[in-house]
């Protein structure tokens, strides 16, 4: 079985669990498949609009909003205190890796779009790819951070553009963030994250 061939079936949720797992592991290493999956996911999602859509029961909306309000309060505060609320991260669209990670685009103050894709493998190792990131300026480097829920940011590797395999494992509910730091990296972030995403 060539795992490359599974992209369409994965986009349609037509893989058996073991096949889906193998494909997700492969995604972390295959840029072509990630790109193709992003496209095919869009086509698959378009099929959703082919179904007749009766109005959902009115209580569903309230139920979702109430559940969200209850859950949110447990998740955010620690992280919000840590960094200034300046950076927007747009969790978007392509959703190439919904099951294994997430796709997040950041809108920077200058208007540049960044799209960060984190692919989590089953063993909790992860790769981070940031598209749209300019090469780091002279004397600077990008540094990735893994921020466990309730914990301090842990340095997860430096890079000058593109992406990297994150050092260490990414615990459940951790946040992955990227900052611009001085060359060589630092042990704790000193700047506002350019992009962040919650796993």
């Amino acid at each position, binding site marked *: 079985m060539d795992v490359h061939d599974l992209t369409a079936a994965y986009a349609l949720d037509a893989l*058996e669990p073991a096949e889906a797992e193998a494909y997700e592991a492969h995604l972390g290493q295959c840029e072509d498949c990630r790109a193709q999956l992003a496209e095919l996911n869009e086509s698959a999602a378009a099929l959703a609009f082919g179904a007749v859509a009766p109005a959902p029961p009115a209580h569903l909306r309230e139920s979702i909003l109430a559940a969200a309000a209850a859950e949110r309060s447990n998740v955010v505060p620690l992280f919000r205190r840590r960094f200034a609320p300046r950076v927007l991260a747009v969790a978007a669209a392509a959703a190439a890796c919904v099951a294994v990670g997430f796709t997040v685009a950041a*809108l920077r103050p200058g208007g540049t779009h960044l799209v960060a894709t984190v692919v989590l493998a089953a063993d909790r190792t992860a790769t981070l790819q940031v598209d749209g990131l300019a090469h780091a300026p002279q004397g600077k480097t990008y540094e990735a951070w893994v921020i466990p829920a309730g914990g301090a940011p842990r340095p997860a590797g430096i890079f000058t553009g593109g992406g990297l395999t994150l050092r260490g494992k990414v615990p459940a509910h951790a946040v992955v963030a990227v900052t611009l730091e001085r060359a060589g990296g630092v042990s704790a972030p000193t700047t506002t994250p350019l992009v962040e995403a919650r796993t």
Partner: protein
Amino acid sequence: MAARSEESALAELYDRYGRAAYGLALRVVRDPALAEDAVQEAFLALWNSAARFVPEKSKASTWILTLVHRRAVDAVRREQRRRADSLDHAPEPSVGGVDEDAWLRLQRERVQAALRSLPDAQREALELAYYGGFSQSELAERLGQPIGTIKSRMFAGLSRLRELLGEPGTEVSWTSTI
């Protein structure tokens, strides 16, 4: 308080795509209670995965509908509820009339026209997989075809749909503020 605007953003997202999401879930699971569960789980997964939203060009719908679909398929496989033989009979409530949202109706007509223009074998593979919740192995068995053939049909069908449907219009996207 930021949480309040995040909640109103979630409400806005629901108002925009909740109906399409519910329609999709219902089509797959064929049970209103299971459909509600799938939609709720998907919206909460999205909520927990990052985000606040602002109007912008992006594809929030792909994200939410992908989440909904996955949960619906999981549910239908768990419940063994799928009945593909009724796919042809459009088991949903009758369409048309004043109840249906005009924008959704246009979308549906567009997608259904695109589906109709596909070769029968490709359309069948896409419908059984996406709406019926069948895996590729189940499809291969059901249709008496090698699995490679099923994969090719799915790939060709989705690729062709992409061409037929072209670039989607402007949507809203999600942002997360740290």
